[in-house]
Protein backbone atom coordinates (compact mmCIF):
# COMPACT_ATOMS: atom_id res chain seq x y z
CA UNK A 1 0.00 0.00 0.00
CA UNK A 2 1.30 3.44 -0.93
CA UNK A 3 2.00 5.80 1.97
CA UNK A 4 -0.21 8.43 0.28
CA UNK A 5 -3.35 6.36 0.92
CA UNK A 6 -5.32 7.99 3.72
CA UNK A 7 -6.23 5.87 6.72
CA UNK A 8 -8.05 6.52 9.96
CA UNK A 9 -10.69 5.54 12.50
CA UNK A 10 -14.46 5.84 12.28
CA UNK A 11 -15.52 8.74 14.58
CA UNK A 12 -19.21 8.34 13.78
CA UNK A 13 -21.38 6.87 11.03
CA UNK A 14 -24.91 6.45 9.69
CA UNK A 15 -26.76 4.50 7.03
CA UNK A 16 -28.88 6.82 4.90
CA UNK A 17 -32.23 5.55 3.64
CA UNK A 18 -33.81 8.85 2.63
CA UNK A 19 -31.30 10.47 0.27
CA UNK A 20 -31.15 13.85 -1.44
CA UNK A 21 -32.11 14.05 -5.12
CA UNK A 22 -28.59 13.55 -6.44
CA UNK A 23 -28.03 10.33 -4.43
CA UNK A 24 -31.54 8.86 -4.33
CA UNK A 25 -30.70 5.96 -6.69
CA UNK A 26 -27.84 4.81 -4.40
CA UNK A 27 -29.79 4.57 -1.11
CA UNK A 28 -29.34 2.94 1.34
CA UNK A 29 -25.68 3.84 1.72
CA UNK A 30 -23.33 4.53 4.63
CA UNK A 31 -21.51 7.77 5.37
CA UNK A 32 -19.00 8.35 8.15
CA UNK A 33 -16.76 10.97 9.68
CA UNK A 34 -13.22 9.61 9.78
CA UNK A 35 -10.54 10.79 12.19
CA UNK A 36 -7.51 10.64 9.90
CA UNK A 37 -4.27 9.14 11.21
CA UNK A 38 -2.41 12.29 10.23
CA UNK A 39 -4.92 14.52 12.05
CA UNK A 40 -8.15 16.19 10.99
CA UNK A 41 -11.50 14.72 10.06
CA UNK A 42 -13.29 14.10 6.80
CA UNK A 43 -16.83 13.06 5.85
CA UNK A 44 -16.78 10.13 3.44
CA UNK A 45 -18.84 7.38 1.86
CA UNK A 46 -18.21 3.82 3.01
CA UNK A 47 -17.60 1.13 0.38
CA UNK A 48 -18.15 -2.58 1.03
CA UNK A 49 -18.98 -3.83 4.53
CA UNK A 50 -20.73 -1.55 7.04
CA UNK A 51 -18.42 0.02 9.64
CA UNK A 52 -18.94 1.08 13.27
CA UNK A 53 -17.38 3.68 15.59
CA UNK A 54 -13.77 2.75 16.32
CA UNK A 55 -13.24 0.67 13.18
CA UNK A 56 -10.00 1.21 11.25
CA UNK A 57 -10.61 2.26 7.66
CA UNK A 58 -8.52 3.10 4.58
CA UNK A 59 -9.31 5.15 1.53
CA UNK A 60 -10.59 3.11 -1.38
CA UNK A 61 -10.62 4.40 -4.91
CA UNK A 62 -12.33 7.80 -5.22
CA UNK A 63 -15.44 7.72 -7.41
CA UNK A 64 -16.46 10.88 -9.24
CA UNK A 65 -14.47 13.04 -6.83
CA UNK A 66 -16.11 11.64 -3.68
CA UNK A 67 -13.87 10.01 -1.05
CA UNK A 68 -14.79 6.37 -0.38
CA UNK A 69 -13.28 4.56 2.59
CA UNK A 70 -13.49 0.86 3.41
CA UNK A 71 -12.79 -1.34 6.41
CA UNK A 72 -9.02 -1.93 6.81
CA UNK A 73 -7.91 -5.50 6.07
Amino acid at each position, binding site marked *: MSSSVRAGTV*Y*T*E*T*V*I*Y*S*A*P*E*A*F*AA*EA*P*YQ*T*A*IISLDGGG*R*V*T*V*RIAGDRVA*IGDKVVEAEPRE*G*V*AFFEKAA
Partner: protein
Amino acid sequence: MRPVAIIGIGKTPFGAFPGRDLRSLAVEAGEKALHNANVRPDQIESFYLGNFAGPSFAGQNHLAPYVSTALGIQGVPSTRIEAACASGGSAFFHGWSEVAAGINDIVMVVGVEKMTSQPTARVSQILAEAGDCSGEMKAGSTFASLFAMIARRHMYEYGTKKEHLAAVAVKNHANGALNPDAHMRKPITLEQAMKGKPIADPLNIYDCSLISDGAAAVILAPLERAYEFTQKPIRVLGISQASDYVALDQKADITTFPAVRRAADKAYQMAGVTPQAIEFAEIHDCFTIAEIIAIEDLGFVKKGEGGPFSFEGNTARTGKLPVNTSGGLKSKGHPVGATGVAQLCDLALQMRCEAGERQIPRHSLGLAQNLGGSGATCVVSILGVV
Protein backbone atom coordinates in the same frame (compact mmCIF):
# COMPACT_ATOMS: atom_id res chain seq x y z
CA MET B 1 -29.07 49.84 25.22
CA ARG B 2 -32.80 50.40 25.65
CA PRO B 3 -35.05 47.67 27.08
CA VAL B 4 -37.12 46.16 24.26
CA ALA B 5 -40.56 44.55 24.32
CA ILE B 6 -42.63 42.38 22.02
CA ILE B 7 -45.91 44.26 21.55
CA GLY B 8 -47.65 42.02 19.05
CA ILE B 9 -47.53 38.49 17.65
CA GLY B 10 -49.13 36.71 14.70
CA LYS B 11 -48.85 33.25 13.16
CA THR B 12 -50.37 31.26 10.36
CA PRO B 13 -51.19 27.65 11.07
CA PHE B 14 -48.28 25.38 10.06
CA GLY B 15 -48.96 22.62 7.54
CA ALA B 16 -49.04 21.76 3.86
CA PHE B 17 -51.05 24.39 2.04
CA PRO B 18 -51.02 23.71 -1.70
CA GLY B 19 -53.01 26.84 -2.53
CA ARG B 20 -50.82 29.29 -0.59
CA ASP B 21 -47.65 31.02 -1.75
CA LEU B 22 -44.80 32.43 0.36
CA ARG B 23 -46.07 36.00 0.24
CA SER B 24 -49.64 35.21 1.27
CA LEU B 25 -48.37 33.27 4.30
CA ALA B 26 -45.99 36.06 5.35
CA VAL B 27 -48.70 38.69 4.87
CA GLU B 28 -51.21 36.72 6.95
CA ALA B 29 -48.77 36.46 9.88
CA GLY B 30 -47.75 40.12 9.51
CA GLU B 31 -51.34 41.37 9.41
CA LYS B 32 -52.22 39.33 12.50
CA ALA B 33 -49.25 40.87 14.36
CA LEU B 34 -50.23 44.40 13.28
CA HIS B 35 -53.77 43.78 14.52
CA ASN B 36 -52.49 42.18 17.71
CA ALA B 37 -50.28 45.19 18.47
CA ASN B 38 -52.80 47.82 17.30
CA VAL B 39 -50.13 49.12 14.95
CA ARG B 40 -50.77 50.52 11.46
CA PRO B 41 -48.44 49.51 8.59
CA ASP B 42 -47.25 53.12 8.23
CA GLN B 43 -46.01 53.04 11.85
CA ILE B 44 -43.49 50.28 11.06
CA GLU B 45 -40.04 51.90 10.82
CA SER B 46 -38.00 48.87 9.78
CA PHE B 47 -38.84 45.38 8.50
CA TYR B 48 -36.88 42.13 8.78
CA LEU B 49 -37.72 38.90 7.00
CA GLY B 50 -36.25 35.61 8.15
CA ASN B 51 -36.23 33.21 5.22
CA PHE B 52 -33.90 30.37 4.34
CA ALA B 53 -34.53 29.35 0.76
CA GLY B 54 -37.35 31.28 -0.86
CA PRO B 55 -35.35 31.58 -4.09
CA SER B 56 -34.94 27.76 -4.26
CA PHE B 57 -38.34 26.72 -2.93
CA ALA B 58 -40.45 29.42 -4.56
CA GLY B 59 -38.28 30.87 -7.35
CA GLN B 60 -38.49 34.37 -5.89
CA ASN B 61 -35.71 36.59 -4.63
CA HIS B 62 -35.60 40.12 -3.14
CA LEU B 63 -38.11 38.83 -0.66
CA ALA B 64 -38.12 41.45 2.10
CA PRO B 65 -39.64 44.35 0.11
CA TYR B 66 -41.71 41.78 -1.81
CA VAL B 67 -43.43 40.95 1.49
CA SER B 68 -43.31 44.30 3.30
CA THR B 69 -44.95 46.26 0.48
CA ALA B 70 -47.73 43.66 0.34
CA LEU B 71 -48.30 44.44 4.02
CA GLY B 72 -48.64 48.15 3.17
CA ILE B 73 -45.25 48.98 4.68
CA GLN B 74 -43.72 51.55 2.36
CA GLY B 75 -40.32 53.16 2.03
CA VAL B 76 -38.60 51.82 5.16
CA PRO B 77 -35.60 49.46 5.30
CA SER B 78 -36.70 45.92 4.40
CA THR B 79 -34.02 43.32 5.01
CA ARG B 80 -33.95 39.58 4.48
CA ILE B 81 -31.86 37.52 6.87
CA GLU B 82 -30.65 34.04 5.91
CA ALA B 83 -29.06 31.80 8.54
CA ALA B 84 -30.41 28.37 7.53
CA CYS B 85 -32.89 27.11 10.15
CA ALA B 86 -31.96 30.04 12.41
CA SER B 87 -33.06 32.64 9.83
CA GLY B 88 -36.09 33.60 11.93
CA GLY B 89 -34.17 33.90 15.19
CA SER B 90 -31.46 35.88 13.48
CA ALA B 91 -34.02 38.25 11.92
CA PHE B 92 -35.42 38.76 15.43
CA PHE B 93 -31.93 39.40 16.82
CA HIS B 94 -31.31 42.07 14.17
CA GLY B 95 -34.72 43.66 14.68
CA TRP B 96 -34.12 43.73 18.42
CA SER B 97 -30.67 45.31 17.87
CA GLU B 98 -32.20 48.26 16.00
CA VAL B 99 -34.72 48.97 18.74
CA ALA B 100 -32.20 48.42 21.56
CA ALA B 101 -29.71 50.74 19.87
CA GLY B 102 -32.33 53.45 19.44
CA ILE B 103 -32.13 53.46 15.65
CA ASN B 104 -35.85 52.77 15.23
CA ASP B 105 -38.80 52.32 17.59
CA ILE B 106 -41.38 50.11 15.89
CA VAL B 107 -39.84 47.17 14.05
CA MET B 108 -41.57 44.18 12.48
CA VAL B 109 -39.94 40.77 12.15
CA VAL B 110 -41.56 38.11 9.97
CA GLY B 111 -40.29 34.57 9.37
CA VAL B 112 -41.61 32.50 6.50
CA GLU B 113 -40.96 29.37 4.46
CA LYS B 114 -43.00 27.73 1.73
CA MET B 115 -41.58 24.20 1.39
CA THR B 116 -44.26 21.76 0.31
CA SER B 117 -44.36 22.83 -3.33
CA GLN B 118 -41.31 20.57 -3.91
CA PRO B 119 -40.95 16.75 -3.68
CA THR B 120 -39.13 15.42 -0.59
CA ALA B 121 -35.87 14.53 -2.40
CA ARG B 122 -35.72 18.09 -3.79
CA VAL B 123 -36.45 19.53 -0.33
CA SER B 124 -33.59 17.41 1.10
CA GLN B 125 -31.32 18.78 -1.62
CA ILE B 126 -32.24 22.40 -0.88
CA LEU B 127 -31.86 21.88 2.88
CA ALA B 128 -28.49 20.19 2.26
CA GLU B 129 -27.23 23.49 0.84
CA ALA B 130 -27.17 24.77 4.43
CA GLY B 131 -24.30 22.34 5.01
CA ASP B 132 -20.81 22.34 3.49
CA CYS B 133 -21.45 21.57 -0.17
CA SER B 134 -17.74 21.12 -0.93
CA GLY B 135 -17.33 18.36 1.68
CA GLU B 136 -19.97 16.59 3.77
CA MET B 137 -22.79 17.13 1.29
CA LYS B 138 -20.70 15.90 -1.65
CA ALA B 139 -20.45 12.58 0.21
CA GLY B 140 -24.23 12.20 0.09
CA SER B 141 -25.11 13.60 3.51
CA THR B 142 -28.52 14.97 4.41
CA PHE B 143 -29.37 17.01 7.47
CA ALA B 144 -30.98 13.92 8.93
CA SER B 145 -27.75 11.99 8.34
CA LEU B 146 -25.64 14.68 10.03
CA PHE B 147 -27.86 14.58 13.11
CA ALA B 148 -27.89 10.78 12.90
CA MET B 149 -24.09 10.83 13.13
CA ILE B 150 -24.36 13.24 16.07
CA ALA B 151 -26.84 10.85 17.74
CA ARG B 152 -24.55 7.86 17.17
CA ARG B 153 -21.64 9.62 18.81
CA HIS B 154 -23.80 10.90 21.70
CA MET B 155 -25.01 7.32 22.26
CA TYR B 156 -21.42 6.06 22.14
CA GLU B 157 -20.05 8.63 24.57
CA TYR B 158 -22.94 9.02 27.02
CA GLY B 159 -25.03 5.87 26.71
CA THR B 160 -27.99 7.77 25.25
CA LYS B 161 -30.58 5.27 24.05
CA LYS B 162 -32.98 5.08 21.15
CA GLU B 163 -35.81 5.15 23.76
CA HIS B 164 -34.57 8.55 24.94
CA LEU B 165 -34.86 9.95 21.42
CA ALA B 166 -38.29 8.38 20.97
CA ALA B 167 -39.50 9.90 24.26
CA VAL B 168 -38.77 13.39 22.87
CA ALA B 169 -40.95 12.65 19.84
CA VAL B 170 -43.78 11.23 21.96
CA LYS B 171 -43.75 14.28 24.26
CA ASN B 172 -43.69 16.79 21.40
CA HIS B 173 -46.50 15.00 19.57
CA ALA B 174 -48.58 15.03 22.78
CA ASN B 175 -48.09 18.80 23.02
CA GLY B 176 -48.70 19.44 19.33
CA ALA B 177 -51.96 17.52 19.50
CA LEU B 178 -53.25 20.34 21.75
CA ASN B 179 -52.04 23.13 19.46
CA PRO B 180 -54.69 24.13 16.91
CA ASP B 181 -51.99 25.66 14.68
CA ALA B 182 -49.75 22.56 14.64
CA HIS B 183 -48.97 20.68 11.42
CA MET B 184 -49.37 17.19 12.88
CA ARG B 185 -51.93 17.00 15.71
CA LYS B 186 -51.47 13.30 16.36
CA PRO B 187 -50.32 11.71 19.61
CA ILE B 188 -47.94 8.77 19.13
CA THR B 189 -46.85 5.93 21.42
CA LEU B 190 -43.29 5.10 22.40
CA GLU B 191 -43.62 1.85 20.48
CA GLN B 192 -44.62 3.70 17.30
CA ALA B 193 -41.80 6.18 17.75
CA MET B 194 -39.31 3.33 18.11
CA LYS B 195 -40.42 1.61 14.94
CA GLY B 196 -40.86 4.36 12.35
CA LYS B 197 -39.60 4.16 8.79
CA PRO B 198 -35.77 4.46 8.86
CA ILE B 199 -34.38 7.78 7.55
CA ALA B 200 -30.72 7.71 8.65
CA ASP B 201 -29.76 5.25 11.41
CA PRO B 202 -30.46 5.61 14.30
CA LEU B 203 -33.07 8.22 13.30
CA ASN B 204 -36.42 7.20 11.90
CA ILE B 205 -39.28 9.28 10.59
CA TYR B 206 -40.48 10.08 14.13
CA ASP B 207 -37.10 11.58 15.02
CA CYS B 208 -37.36 14.12 12.20
CA SER B 209 -39.19 17.44 12.13
CA LEU B 210 -41.75 18.12 9.44
CA ILE B 211 -41.56 19.78 6.04
CA SER B 212 -44.07 22.59 6.46
CA ASP B 213 -45.43 25.83 5.08
CA GLY B 214 -46.01 28.69 7.47
CA ALA B 215 -45.15 32.13 8.77
CA ALA B 216 -44.85 33.95 12.08
CA ALA B 217 -44.43 37.61 13.00
CA VAL B 218 -43.62 39.79 15.97
CA ILE B 219 -43.56 43.55 16.44
CA LEU B 220 -40.95 45.15 18.70
CA ALA B 221 -40.92 48.49 20.48
CA PRO B 222 -38.93 50.19 23.23
CA LEU B 223 -40.32 48.98 26.57
CA GLU B 224 -41.09 52.57 27.58
CA ARG B 225 -43.55 52.85 24.67
CA ALA B 226 -45.00 49.31 24.88
CA TYR B 227 -48.16 50.28 26.78
CA GLU B 228 -49.17 52.61 23.93
CA PHE B 229 -49.91 49.42 22.02
CA THR B 230 -50.64 46.53 24.40
CA GLN B 231 -51.61 45.67 27.96
CA LYS B 232 -49.47 42.51 27.77
CA PRO B 233 -45.97 43.46 26.63
CA ILE B 234 -43.32 40.75 26.80
CA ARG B 235 -39.82 41.94 27.62
CA VAL B 236 -36.72 40.71 25.78
CA LEU B 237 -34.50 40.19 28.82
CA GLY B 238 -31.53 38.67 27.02
CA ILE B 239 -30.61 37.71 23.48
CA SER B 240 -27.50 36.62 21.64
CA GLN B 241 -26.48 35.09 18.33
CA ALA B 242 -23.35 32.99 17.89
CA SER B 243 -21.65 31.08 15.09
CA ASP B 244 -19.45 28.08 14.44
CA TYR B 245 -18.16 25.93 11.55
CA VAL B 246 -20.70 25.00 8.87
CA ALA B 247 -19.16 21.54 8.32
CA LEU B 248 -19.82 19.03 11.08
CA ASP B 249 -16.44 17.34 10.51
CA GLN B 250 -14.60 20.55 11.50
CA LYS B 251 -16.00 20.46 15.05
CA ALA B 252 -13.76 18.97 17.73
CA ASP B 253 -16.75 17.40 19.52
CA ILE B 254 -20.01 16.86 17.66
CA THR B 255 -21.99 15.98 20.80
CA THR B 256 -22.11 19.66 21.81
CA PHE B 257 -22.79 22.88 19.94
CA PRO B 258 -20.37 25.66 20.93
CA ALA B 259 -22.62 28.25 19.23
CA VAL B 260 -25.48 27.26 21.54
CA ARG B 261 -23.28 27.53 24.62
CA ARG B 262 -21.88 30.90 23.55
CA ALA B 263 -25.27 32.38 22.67
CA ALA B 264 -26.77 31.01 25.89
CA ASP B 265 -23.97 32.32 28.12
CA LYS B 266 -24.35 35.83 26.73
CA ALA B 267 -28.15 35.75 26.86
CA TYR B 268 -28.15 34.54 30.50
CA GLN B 269 -25.63 37.23 31.38
CA MET B 270 -27.69 39.98 29.72
CA ALA B 271 -30.86 38.77 31.41
CA GLY B 272 -29.10 38.33 34.76
CA VAL B 273 -30.55 34.85 35.24
CA THR B 274 -29.20 31.33 35.58
CA PRO B 275 -30.35 28.33 33.51
CA GLN B 276 -32.08 27.00 36.63
CA ALA B 277 -34.33 30.08 36.78
CA ILE B 278 -35.83 29.38 33.34
CA GLU B 279 -39.39 28.09 33.75
CA PHE B 280 -40.06 26.76 30.23
CA ALA B 281 -38.46 26.70 26.82
CA GLU B 282 -39.03 26.40 23.09
CA ILE B 283 -36.11 24.32 21.80
CA HIS B 284 -34.95 23.67 18.22
CA ASP B 285 -35.90 19.98 17.91
CA CYS B 286 -35.16 19.67 14.18
CA PHE B 287 -34.31 16.09 15.19
CA THR B 288 -34.99 14.48 18.56
CA ILE B 289 -31.27 14.32 19.39
CA ALA B 290 -31.05 18.10 18.88
CA GLU B 291 -33.48 18.72 21.76
CA ILE B 292 -31.49 16.39 24.02
CA ILE B 293 -28.20 18.14 23.22
CA ALA B 294 -29.78 21.59 23.49
CA ILE B 295 -31.01 21.04 27.05
CA GLU B 296 -27.44 20.03 27.91
CA ASP B 297 -25.77 22.95 26.13
CA LEU B 298 -28.26 25.42 27.61
CA GLY B 299 -27.18 24.30 31.08
CA PHE B 300 -30.50 22.76 32.17
CA VAL B 301 -28.80 19.39 32.77
CA LYS B 302 -25.21 18.13 32.83
CA LYS B 303 -23.57 16.92 29.63
CA GLY B 304 -24.83 13.47 28.73
CA GLU B 305 -27.91 13.63 30.97
CA GLY B 306 -30.30 15.05 28.36
CA GLY B 307 -31.56 11.64 27.26
CA PRO B 308 -32.54 10.23 30.68
CA PHE B 309 -33.88 13.66 31.78
CA SER B 310 -36.23 13.67 28.77
CA PHE B 311 -37.18 10.01 29.12
CA GLU B 312 -38.16 10.53 32.77
CA GLY B 313 -40.76 13.14 31.80
CA ASN B 314 -39.04 16.25 33.15
CA THR B 315 -39.62 18.14 29.89
CA ALA B 316 -43.34 17.30 29.64
CA ARG B 317 -45.96 19.99 30.26
CA THR B 318 -46.31 18.64 33.80
CA GLY B 319 -42.54 18.23 34.30
CA LYS B 320 -40.12 20.53 36.08
CA LEU B 321 -38.97 22.14 32.81
CA PRO B 322 -41.66 22.05 30.11
CA VAL B 323 -39.96 22.05 26.68
CA ASN B 324 -41.80 22.71 23.44
CA THR B 325 -45.32 23.07 24.77
CA SER B 326 -46.16 24.16 21.21
CA GLY B 327 -45.29 20.70 19.88
CA GLY B 328 -41.89 21.87 18.69
CA LEU B 329 -40.57 21.50 15.18
CA LYS B 330 -41.47 17.83 15.40
CA SER B 331 -45.22 18.25 15.68
CA LYS B 332 -45.99 21.96 15.27
CA GLY B 333 -43.97 21.85 12.04
CA HIS B 334 -40.76 23.41 10.74
CA PRO B 335 -41.22 25.97 7.99
CA VAL B 336 -37.52 26.76 8.27
CA GLY B 337 -37.46 30.57 8.15
CA ALA B 338 -40.61 30.87 10.29
CA THR B 339 -39.41 28.62 13.12
CA GLY B 340 -37.29 31.08 15.12
CA VAL B 341 -40.04 33.69 15.11
CA ALA B 342 -42.76 31.16 15.88
CA GLN B 343 -40.82 30.01 18.97
CA LEU B 344 -41.04 33.59 20.32
CA CYS B 345 -44.77 33.74 19.54
CA ASP B 346 -45.24 30.47 21.42
CA LEU B 347 -43.34 31.75 24.46
CA ALA B 348 -45.48 34.90 24.35
CA LEU B 349 -48.73 32.88 24.16
CA GLN B 350 -47.79 31.04 27.36
CA MET B 351 -46.72 34.29 29.05
CA ARG B 352 -50.02 35.95 28.15
CA CYS B 353 -51.98 32.88 29.35
CA GLU B 354 -53.32 32.44 25.81
CA ALA B 355 -51.99 28.92 25.17
CA GLY B 356 -55.36 27.22 25.61
CA GLU B 357 -55.30 23.53 26.46
CA ARG B 358 -51.50 23.45 26.59
CA GLN B 359 -51.21 26.37 29.05
CA ILE B 360 -48.67 25.71 31.80
CA PRO B 361 -48.84 27.26 35.28
CA ARG B 362 -45.27 28.63 35.51
CA HIS B 363 -44.77 30.90 32.51
CA SER B 364 -43.12 34.15 33.55
CA LEU B 365 -39.57 33.40 32.32
CA GLY B 366 -39.05 31.52 29.05
CA LEU B 367 -36.18 30.74 26.70
CA ALA B 368 -36.12 30.13 22.94
CA GLN B 369 -33.22 28.41 21.19
CA ASN B 370 -33.05 28.48 17.39
CA LEU B 371 -30.32 26.47 15.64
CA GLY B 372 -29.07 26.80 12.07
CA GLY B 373 -27.65 23.86 10.13
CA SER B 374 -25.68 21.43 12.26
CA GLY B 375 -24.88 24.22 14.71
CA ALA B 376 -23.21 26.95 12.62
CA THR B 377 -25.69 29.56 13.87
CA CYS B 378 -27.56 29.74 17.14
CA VAL B 379 -29.82 32.42 18.56
CA VAL B 380 -30.91 32.25 22.19
CA SER B 381 -33.60 34.62 23.46
CA ILE B 382 -34.87 34.97 27.02
CA LEU B 383 -38.27 36.57 27.44
CA GLY B 384 -40.02 37.68 30.60
CA VAL B 385 -43.42 38.90 31.69
CA VAL B 386 -43.30 42.62 32.43
